[in-house]
């Protein structure tokens, strides 16, 4: 299988980037996108060049480390699929692919396809936890949580922190990410005592990081590899309003 690649190259955070062309004609349709880049990098290195910097770790769609934009599609042409889970059979033989990093002001580019997503960690740090110290917990079954609620909490908790929602949003908003964590914790009885500070502090941190606002186009839920839905954003908005009214 053959592909024409145009890959974003950028030596460092404040250096101008450009697309670099490569043609690969010995690909296998079952290769994943990172495996294709491994293959390309081996060739580049052996011919004395500078390999493409990109990140991936688990290569099974759960760690959230990978992710770039392929022909304008965040992560993948396949809906709700991470880059590492995208195989070349998703493309046409001979197709041209443009590979770029996720782009957002709050995710500065470090090198080539590698970005800095530490803003997400700072949002979690602002309140994305339940303040229980080791040893304080009560017997687990003294807290009953009905099946539907547990499932709903899981749906929100499933976020892998990849940043696709931000990358696809025209405003680079982090509302889907932030709301998923706010709701996961605040809908559970264990998370209720801190619910109002949590939403206030996490939203404040999100704004401080320079993420944009949400205009409810729903692009984020389409690319989310875990299928986290827009309803989370509405739910967080109402939590936020409530705590402000208090």
């Amino acid at each position: 299988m053959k592909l024409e690649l145009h890959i974003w190259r950028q030596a460092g955070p404040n250096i101008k980037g450009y697309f670099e062309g490569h043609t690969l004609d010995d690909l296998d349709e079952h290769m994943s996108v990172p495996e294709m880049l491994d293959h390309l990098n081996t060739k580049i290195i052996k011919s004395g060049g500078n390999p493409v910097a990109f990140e991936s770790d688990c290569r099974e769609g759960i760690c959230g480390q990978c992710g770039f934009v392929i022909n304008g599609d965040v992560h993948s042409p396949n809906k709700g699929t991470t880059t590492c889970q995208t195989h070349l059979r998703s493309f046409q033989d001979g197709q041209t692919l443009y590979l770029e990093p996720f782009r957002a002001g709050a995710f500065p580019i470090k090198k080539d396809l590698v970005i800095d997503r530490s803003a997400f960690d700072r949002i979690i740090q602002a309140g994305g936890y339940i303040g229980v110290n080791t040893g304080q917990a009560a017997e687990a079954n003294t807290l009953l949580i009905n099946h539907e609620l547990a499932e709903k909490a899981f749906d929100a908790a499933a976020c892998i922190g990849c940043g696709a929602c931000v990358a696809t949003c025209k405003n680079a908003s982090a509302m889907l990410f932030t709301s998923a964590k706010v709701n996961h914790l605040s809908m559970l009885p264990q998370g209720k005592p801190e619910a109002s500070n949590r939403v206030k502090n996490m939203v404040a941190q999100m704004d401080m990081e320079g993420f944009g606002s949400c205009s409810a186009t729903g692009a984020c839920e389409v690319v989310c590899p875990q299928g986290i839905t827009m309803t989370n954003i509405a739910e967080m908005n109402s939590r936020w309003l409530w705590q402000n009214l208090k």
Partner: protein
Amino acid sequence: MLDSRIPDGPLEDKWQKYKAHAQLINPANRRNYKIIVVGTGLAGASSAASLAELGFQVEVFTFHDSARRAHSVAAQGGVNAAKDYKNDGDSVWRMFYDTLKGGDFRAREANVYRLAECSMALIDQAVAQGVPFAREYSGYLSNRSFGGVQVSRTFYARGQTGQQLLLGAYQALMRQNAGSNLTLHTRHEMLDVITLNGEAKGVTIRNLDTGELTSHHCDALLLATGGYGKIYYLSTLAMNCNATAIWRAHRKGAFMAAPSWTQFHPTSLPQLGDYQSKLTLMSESLRNDGRIWVPKLVNEKRAPKDIPEAERDYYLERRYPSFGNLAPRDISSRAAKERIDAGHGVGPMKNAVYLDFKDALNRDGQPAIAQRYGNLFDMYQKITGMNAYKEPMMIAPAAHFSMGGLWVDYRLMSNLPGLFVLGEANFSDHGANRLGANSLLQSCVDGYFIAPSTVMDYLAEVGSAKSKKDATWEAAAALSKAEVSKRLEHLLKIKGNTTAEEFHKELGQILYVKCGLSRNQTDMEAAREALLALQKRFQKELLIPGNASEINFELEKAVRVEDYLEMAILIVEDALQRKESCGAHFRQEYQTEDGEALRNDEDFKYVSAWEYKGDNQYALHKEHLNFEFVELKSRSYK
């Protein structure tokens, strides 16, 4: 002599007794002690957060760009606890016994008992953190069963239990990072342990974004750096999993225990081509409802649905009628390999077996199966393009979990005073084979419950002589930094024509074939020669682009592969000396007539602990295992 420091007294009382006598440090004084934790997986994040909660000064390093990406995130199936919520006869004792037996009686009784004993508190802790475990309609926690046991003691969060537990620990860690007791450094890799008078007193760290090397002082060092199964190249581990932290500690004097005990997981997706970089695991919980079979005919050409029942060999049900498809991992993997080697393998490379849900789908209907395994079936479709509701999955064994690791005593401290090793990085609880859903547990129990108590005990013990960051320390730190710097420069200067990845693939191939699921003397001796030759070639032919003062993923890989190459030789050495079969270690020379493992308790009832002697030389120490509370039995799942 290795002193495992197991408290005496009845098994049930040992941990309580230890805790009762462990020394404490006054809360106001704790901030005077500096603890370094390397790794932010379940073991690292949980220990770091718990120690910071106690008031110690904690500094945490991970090579990942976020603490949440540690490979604990990928665990699917679940976590065990002896809650006996099912009223199906579970107890701490039964869990202890299952684990010890599952490990083929090659683990310490006291450690295993403690693991079972602390299991319940972990579930409580995780629920309190908001981990959304599966629930019954009544609101109570739900359980399922896992390989190797006959009770249902596994707690799970759909197929993402590791992710949910890790997020709980990560959130606890970030909460502390916001406070004043803990500092987290991401994209920082530990490349050496700083030792002073044979004690661990710090680390040399490389900033992976800038290449800068820095020295960090501590009173206690905790390595929670995960497993090294990726040494086989194709494995269920993440691309960046590596042994560098534990290997560098080993070179500084820490003993490496049972490095050849690697578990091969029976339900991974098979390799499809040479380009492949990893093998994806399908949770073994699938074995609750899936039936494993191969065609009876060698070189079968028909599609699975066209093969009549009578021409299918449900080999696990046939060989192990009482455990059937839930036989432990080592046994299931070996049985698959046996059928594949005998020519019954399926799939394009004839390297797989079928995992068939036909009967479960007929019995329970597609919605019920989808609810239990929906995300796994979706994942299977994403990766293979095939629909497992319509045709059986194809699965194969893959390198997965390291039972081996740095040797630790009951306190989880290695023979280097001040160096603690937690989670998959240590050897402690799983013997020669780990039971499913026990290692998330072990990582959490080590981090939340054991280390906080034992590290404090150690610090209180050395208390008055608390290490100082004085001139002798500075000299040791400078030496370590100079060594690391020299090593990186040397690797960069080789400028050959082969990438680190290519060497890693070759290394993996040698180990898979000659020291993998089954081993024999002749093959392993050949492996040793091949590995020595590969190591030589690495030093001559390695090619790394770029330099050491920038983001350089190739340099990161090369360092890890260099360590893997050294470790592989010790793995073979370890497997060679153990002239018996036990757990995941199957020596072809030592088997019964019907192909079962033949253990030799008389001569091998010990854990090997290797001392580094330089230049691929090692000295063997033995920790003899005393079984005071159980009778050794040959492990039968028939």
